[in-house]
Each structure stands twice: as C-alpha cells, then as structure tokens.
C-alpha cells in the first residue's frame, strides 16, 4: 500500500534532481523522505530500513551513480524477500528502449525519464500509487 504516509528513498547523485524530486514529493504530501547520494549508500539504506519497523514504501532511483548503479541497487533490492515487492521507480536520463526493458525485467515498478517537470513526476507517482493500491 503506497500512501503519503510511506517512507520514501531518493537515490540520486545529482543534488538538483534530488531537490526536484523532493519538492514534488512534498507537494504531493509525502513527509518522510530520505536521500542517498550514491548506489552503495542506497543499497545499505534499503537493507537497513527493511529490517526496521519502517521500511521504505517507495524508492526513486537514478541509474548512473557512483559505487553501485541503479540497476544493481534494484537487483539487490529484489533479491531480498523483505524488499522484493517494494515499489521501485527508475528515474534516469537513459531513455533508450533497451534500458527501459532491462529495468522492468529486473523488477522496476516504473520508469521516469529525465528531464522531467515536477508536474509530470506528480502525475506519474499518483498513477503508480493508484495501480499499486487497486
């Protein structure tokens, strides 16, 4: 169940994009937002949260990041029974079909291509929540 009470992780090495995603989430009503600055940090935060009383309810993850790529963060997430179903959205400048297919095949819930506007992200996240909460 994805709601504005869910805890969200933004995994993104560029500050500008983290800011845009955070602004969008705040406008949608999300209040529990955490950030990882590279893939290694993201994987560690996801694993730690999974064993805590409040795991992440949504992960927004870049592809090209230092230490561990987003696709590898996704694969790691899907290998853990506790996070195998966590909504995981790739947010990346990689728009080629082969990367979309690769991400969805690896278990991504959805795929958002940069550049994006806050409005487009908002609409996308609302659709994802509606789909997951059916």
């Amino acid at each position, binding site marked *: 169940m994805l709601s504005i009470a869910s805890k969200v992780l933004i995994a993104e090495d*560029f*500050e*500008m*994009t983290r*800011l*845009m995603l955070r602004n969008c989430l705040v406008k949608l009503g999300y209040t529990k937002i955490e950030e990882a600055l590279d893939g290694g940090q993201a994987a560690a935060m996801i694993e730690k949260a999974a064993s805590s009383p409040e795991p992440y309810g949504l992960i927004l993850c870049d*592809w*090209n990041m*230092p230490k561990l790529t987003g696709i590898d963060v996704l694969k790691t997430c899907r290998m853990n029974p506790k996070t195998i179903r966590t909504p995981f959205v790739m947010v*990346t*400048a*990689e*728009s*080629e079909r082969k990367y979309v297919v690769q991400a969805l095949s690896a278990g991504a819930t959805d795929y958002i291509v*940069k*550049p*994006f*506007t806050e409005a487009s992200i908002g609409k996308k996240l609302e659709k994802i929540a509606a789909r997951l909460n059916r």
Partner: protein
Amino acid sequence: MQTHSNAPRLVVDDQLAKIAIQSVRKAMETLFTLTPTNTPWSLQKNFQSHGDISGIISMVQEKMEATLIVSFEAKTIFQLMKKVYKRDFTTIDSSIQQGVGELTNIIYSSIKQKLNDRGHEFKMAIPNVVIGQGHSIINLHEGQQLVVPFSADGNPFYVEVATNQS
C-alpha cells in the same frame, strides 16, 4: 572471441547539429521553462570553449569518438539554477557544479538516444565538470568541432562536439 561493432562513425553534419540543438532545447524547456535560442552552428578546427564552468562528457562507441562540452558563463548558469533552487547565486558553489554536471548528463543522454536510434552504439557516461573563471578548453581531437552558440534569456552558453574524425 572478439566482436566488432558495426556502428557507423560519428559524422559532424547538419543532422548532428539538429540533434544537439533539439536535445539542449528539450532539457532547458523542461527543467527551466525557457527556450534557448541559437545562432547558426559552425564547423571549426581550433575553437576553444570559453566559460566559467563547463560540463564535459566522452562519447564512446567501440572506441572514443568525440567529446561533448557544454560551457557556461557564470551569469548564465546562475540564472538557470535560480529557477530550480529559487534563490540567487553569486559563486560557483557545489550546487552550481552539480547542476552543470546533471545538465550535461541529460543533454548527452538525449543526443545518445537519438544517435543510437540511427544505428550508433554510444555508451552511458558520467560527466566531468571544469571550473575556472574564463577558462578555455583546448581541443586535442584530430577532427573538427561542431560549435553551437546558444543564448538563454540573453545570457550565452556554448555546446560543442569535438570529434576524432577528420
């Protein structure tokens, strides 16, 4: 077993210029809600990008073929980043540096996708950012440079593709 790519070499022509211009416009329109204008592109041999901050990214197929450079004067990037951060900038701080890196990344990814749709096989890459008031970037590639001068709300920036191919 060694495999060789059949990807065509990058050609500096009107099509590449159009792709670069479309990619820059899309990035700017979406991120900053402004449409940059450009003067006609040119082919040059010894153009030196000038700026206070530049994003640089390698364009690699089977081997390195070109370098994409996006160069900004400080006033230009300050005005652009103000639209995202909703505050004034007076120095090229880490927010500005990262912003240039991300902008270069987004422009390159768009160019890459359009070229790869045409049979090329350009790979993902991570940009570098060069900082220095009035710095120049000297092209050491053997080939020509595609240079597109842009203006964003009257403030200049350049996009350059420096290639290995003569």
